[in-house]
């Protein structure tokens, strides 16, 4: 079974809308990450967490909140969605940070109209 799952897989919302993206991992990993992927930019780190209740800021955090409720679950929140947040979002998990192997979910395609 897939060890990192994401929901929804596709989401369309309007400017100013409220969106929550969900991620669950069954790898028993401490670290979880949210990335966005845009053409010409590769993957960019939004937020990450090293355990339940912890949140760390990544490279492109503006406009995003995140919450890690359990070791398994990590959520990305867009409280006032804007068209610039239209992107492909990936969640990942790893046993440690930096040099550890990361395992990715299938991605969520978000469109903000």
């Amino acid at each position, binding site marked *: 079974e897939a060890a990192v799952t994401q929901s929804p897989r596709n989401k369309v919302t309007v400017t100013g809308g409220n969106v929550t993206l969900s991620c669950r991992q069954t790898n028993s990993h401490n670290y979880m990450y949210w990335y966005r992927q845009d053409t010409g930019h*590769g993957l960019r780190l939004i937020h990450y967490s090293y355990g339940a209740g912890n949140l760390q800021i990544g*490279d492109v955090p503006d406009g995003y909140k995140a919450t890690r409720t359990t070791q398994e679950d990590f959520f990305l929140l867009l409280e006032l969605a804007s068209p610039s947040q239209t992107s492909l979002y990936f969640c990942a998990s790893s046993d440690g940070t930096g*040099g550890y192997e*990361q395992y990715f979910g299938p*991605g969520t395609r978000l469109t903000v109209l």
Partner: protein
Amino acid sequence: GDQVKQSPSALSLQEGTNSALRCNFSIATTTVQWFLQNPRGSLMNLFYLVPGTKENGRLKSTFNSKESYSTLHIRDAQLEDSGTYFCAAGSGGYKVVFGSGTRLLVSP
């Protein structure tokens, strides 16, 4: 400049041929991951490397930390190898840094 530079940016191969993709690192790198993103967008782990070489079927990857590069060799390319290949550099810091990808198209 780019901390992780991938080359080429795009590549077309005929089925059955061989090729190599490369990543050059301008940041201290202790581990390298290679991924294949399929046309549906999913990222598949191909290799996780400390300095050295790994092989899996028709794919072989090398990470040379002293010269700051990694290569991914594809032997006997097949149609299902088409997609975008990414490398990612890991270090002792909090994140990995991704390259911009190599888009590969394998044709009959």
